[in-house]
């Protein structure tokens, strides 16, 4: 369509794009503006769009009201361990599904795909019992250890990627006498960096935003992740909207920065995991 677009339709498309981009940005801008208002201005009718003067103190005040630094560290630790787990396990498992022949391989791959369909609530209660009996409640273990056993979505994504790589390099390494792990580490990993980065970023996004699992497994305030911290900050009766907006924006910041730095990879990664189904 666009290949044949006349200047008029192109201008129309640009106009629609600008309008809809505005719609998508308004909530964030409104949030930013609210986060810089003093309390008396926040309920002003009609709302003041640009706070003059901006009240920057809202940020340090909101962030020291509850230990957001602690929550951030907890979340970063969970994310880092989970990313490590996914990268190690999914690479090896995906390699096997992509390259090695064995009886039952295709059936097992179907089982892998089927586990993606299983609703989380089905395993939620028994998993809680399992981790409770292991004494893992209020630790990061229930949220990070399963990552070392692979995740179907990322195994699938990496397998699709490995299938696109030429076989020659692997054959050469085999002839040089490399074993499977050396082969994966020296030949495939350097080639698969975009796919690995996609898995790392998607894992980061998921564990940074995860809410239900931390809500179940983390009950002591000093173990809270940033989403839990924000939720309890929100429900505390002294919270002001300006503080809440400031805290929420800070919560979003790392994920938005990572996204902006790696957006091509991010969007392509989603498309890759999504399309080849």
């Amino acid at each position, binding site marked *: 369509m666009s290949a044949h677009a006349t200047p008029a339709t192109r201008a129309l498309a640009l106009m629609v794009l600008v309008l809809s981009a505005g719609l998508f940005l308004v909530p964030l801008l409104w949030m930013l503006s609210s986060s810089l208002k003093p309390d008396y201005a926040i309920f002003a009718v009609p709302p003041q769009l640009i706070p003059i003067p901006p009240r920057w103190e809202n940020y340090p005040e909101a962030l020291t009201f509850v230990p957001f630094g602690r929550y951030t560290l907890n979340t970063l630790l969970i994310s880092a361990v989970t990313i490590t787990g996914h990268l190690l396990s999914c690479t090896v498992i995906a390699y096997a599904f992509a390259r090695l022949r*064995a009886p039952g391989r295709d059936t097992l791959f179907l089982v892998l795909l089927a586990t993606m369909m299983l*609703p989380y609530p*089905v395993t939620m209660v*028994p998993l809680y019992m399992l981790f409770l009996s292991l004494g893992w409640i209020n630790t990061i273990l229930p949220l990070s250890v399963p990552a070392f056993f692979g995740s179907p979505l990322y195994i699938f994504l990496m397998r699709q990627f490995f299938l696109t790589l030429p076989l020659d390099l692997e054959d050469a390494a085999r002839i040089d006498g490399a074993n499977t792990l050396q082969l994966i580490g020296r030949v495939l990993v350097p080639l698969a960096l975009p796919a690995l980065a996609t898995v790392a970023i998607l894992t980061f996004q998921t564990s940074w935003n995860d*809410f239900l699992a931390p809500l179940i497994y983390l009950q002591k305030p000093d173990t809270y992740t940033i989403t839990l911290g924000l939720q309890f900050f929100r429900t505390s009766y002294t919270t002001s909207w300006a503080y809440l907006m400031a805290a929420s924006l800070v919560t979003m910041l790392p994920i938005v920065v990572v996204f902006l730095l790696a957006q091509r990879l991010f969007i392509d990664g989603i498309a890759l995991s*999504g399309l080849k189904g």
Partner: protein
Amino acid sequence: MARMSAARREAITFFLCIAPWLVGVFVFVLGPTLASFASSFTRWDLLSPPRFVGLRNYERMLEDPLFWQSLRVTALYTLLYVPTELAGGLALAVLMNQRVPGIALFRTIFYLPSVISGVAFVVVWMWIFHPEAGLLNAALALVGVNGPRWLTDPRTALVALWMMSLWGLGRTAVIFLAGLKGIPKELHEAAVIDGAGVWSVFRHVTVPLLTPTIFFNLVLSLIATFQTFTSAFVATNGGPLDSTLFYVLYLYRQAFERFSMGYAAALAWVLFVIIMALTLLVVRSAERWVYYEGARR
């Protein structure tokens, strides 16, 4: 040790490589799934050992008005959200596919909200929906409309959650965008040469070729929407008057607030069966409306 054949050695390497996944599937997926099924026939409060009660939990559901309410809320929301998500996502993808200056920036803006998801995402919208000081009612006031109380009115709360979720449309749109990029240009050009208009090309060329992507998004969206939790938990906590009591929220309450583990497991299994049935229905219908280009050759 006898010499192994190459094929045999390859098979052993395969199973060694996937061993972590196999262990994980038994420990974190199949085991808990069976345990959940077994405990759905028990009464279990975590304090005393589970007691077998037969089908009592399933019978209880039939008489539980909140179970029916949560099912109704979830079904209604799914009916509202899934079609709009697909149509909106496709429309957005068409926009993202335009060749205009700065398109990368536009794509970033459209996709941005979907990376935020979670509590912060919901909190922004709670403030937008604020009846007195919120942006939405301020905008409505400009055109002389007295806005509703959104999240605190049982008639509008579910609609508000729907509008909120549409902010995350970028994720669906990106998958559609990849699908659009996969359509060979020659097909569009041929249709245009034949004198077809823009809408007609979209309707008769683009949409049919995109049906595999539509199918994929439909299945994903159905499964995800039926498990809506965070937005309802954070924004309304199921209220007002249970008008946003989503199924998984009700399940969570039974398990972790009332400690009715057996009943929660039964609720989870009913959810599982519903989701499986809906997915199968979509998959079965696919042969009638999904068009695979490869199948034609």
